[in-house]
């Protein structure tokens, strides 16, 4: 089974500095929680452009981290910003599921990561 995050690119950028990686993982998780909450709120309020912008932001972050599957799910969400509520609910469920895998993976790399 493939890991939900490929850290090779990120580690080249951080030089493998564990303290920096811990900090980046914490920032990623904190930002992701906000993105998810915002996407849920945007879906509930029918805010299509705000949904698209939020999905775009999360996509970029995810790809930069190396969480390719999560990035692709966010790209799909970005494209489907005008989808009906039931489809957005399904998209959110897929994103949440993949994000949980990413989060658990990051926590396993540095068990003390918040």
């Amino acid at each position, binding site marked *: 089974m493939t890991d939900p995050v490929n850290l090779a690119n990120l580690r080249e950028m951080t030089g493998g500095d564990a303290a920096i990686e811990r900090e*980046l993982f914490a*920032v990623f998780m904190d930002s992701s929680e906000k993105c998810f909450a915002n996407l849920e709120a945007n879906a509930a309020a029918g805010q299509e452009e705000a949904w698209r912008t939020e999905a775009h932001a999360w996509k970029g972050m995810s790809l930069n981290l190396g969480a390719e599957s999560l990035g692709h799910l966010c790209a799909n969400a970005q494209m489907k910003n005008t989808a009906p509520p039931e489809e957005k609910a399904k998209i959110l469920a897929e994103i949440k599921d993949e994000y949980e895998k990413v989060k658990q993976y990051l926590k396993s790399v540095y068990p003390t990561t918040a």
Partner: protein
Amino acid sequence: MEKSTSMPLSLDQIPARVAHFKIAKSTRQKRDKLGVLVVEDQLFSRRLLFEVLRHEFEVDLAANAREGLKLYLENAPDIAFFDIELSGESGHELARIVKALDPDSFVVMVTGNNSVEDVALAKSNRVEGFIVKPYSKAKIMESIEAYRSIRSGGKAT
């Protein structure tokens, strides 16, 4: 850590900053390190780019176009990376203003979309580079090498 930025500059306040910009620009050839400005609205991605650049360059970070323009005028960076999709004014708008103010600028657009429209706008703004996310050290350094090769006599870093 990131440098803090004060109140964002309103785009209509540019004339008040131009005199300072000319002074800052005049120091470009005398710098020990190249100055790099990163305008990126995602904290994670901004922090990641800072990590790549901080050892070799003087780095300024901004989260939106207004902060970016303010820092550009204050410090006259040698190289600027502008994310396209920002909250408020876009990276394209920032590039258009910077190019008009500073013919010697070296601007690299960054995007997660890679759309035909974005490429066309970047070309119309005559920017020097275009990076599609994800970021990588190789992509960033390639842009910096392109800057060095264009500037005759290159600077030590």
